[in-house]
């Protein structure tokens, strides 16, 4: 298995793991009915620190790849961004047409939708990389 494939599997596993942890935290927050500025601040700081750690790590990881691998990863990222937007749009409009314009949905639906779309985007990104690698190995 080439480095690119290994990385794709690792990133998918990490995304699943982070989604499970995030989902657990949100379930807890929903049960506690947490709200207010302090909850927003704790959530925001945690998200910011987590995002920064991931960004720094990804910059280091990116240096390990050569130009063709970077191109494949860039293509995969483009597909995953498209996947995120499409799924976000589909679910948003599906909810709108299902519940109706004047209907209501539980507010925990919003972060759940966001994390669900993020997980889907990572799935698309890893799938594109793995498919590309499989095609190349089939071609010899």
């Amino acid at each position, binding site marked *: 298995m*080439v480095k*690119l494939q290994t990385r794709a599997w690792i990133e998918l596993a990490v995304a699943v793991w982070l989604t499970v942890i995030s989902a657990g935290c949100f379930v807890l927050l929903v049960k506690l009915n947490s709200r207010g500025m302090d909850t927003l601040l704790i959530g925001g700081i945690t998200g910011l620190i987590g995002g920064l750690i991931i960004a720094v790590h990804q910059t280091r990881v990116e240096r390990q790849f*050569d*130009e063709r691998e970077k191109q494949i990863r860039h293509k995969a990222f483009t597909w995953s961004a498209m996947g995120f937007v499409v799924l976000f749009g589909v679910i948003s409009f599906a909810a709108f047409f299902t519940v109706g314009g004047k209907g209501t949905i539980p507010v925990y639906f919003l972060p759940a939708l966001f994390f669900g779309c993020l997980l889907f985007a990572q799935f698309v990104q890893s799938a594109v990389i793995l498919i590309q690698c499989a095609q*190349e190995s089939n071609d*010899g």
Partner: protein
Amino acid sequence: MGDQMLSNRIRRLRFDAGEMTQQELAEKVGVTRQTIIAIEQGKYSPSLPLAFRIAHAFSCRIEEVFQYDREL
């Protein structure tokens, strides 16, 4: 403009350079073996710096390694 317009003689040059393996060439120019395979097969067009590094690895000019087949 498609990638197929850029042909190369890497396989031939490797053979002439004492049957250099794809792995050896990859290590010399700082890419993976998969990238060398993709370039040899014409599936990936290398950047200009990489094309120069490949040419230097064979101690020849870039146009001796890569040819741009102009579509008429």
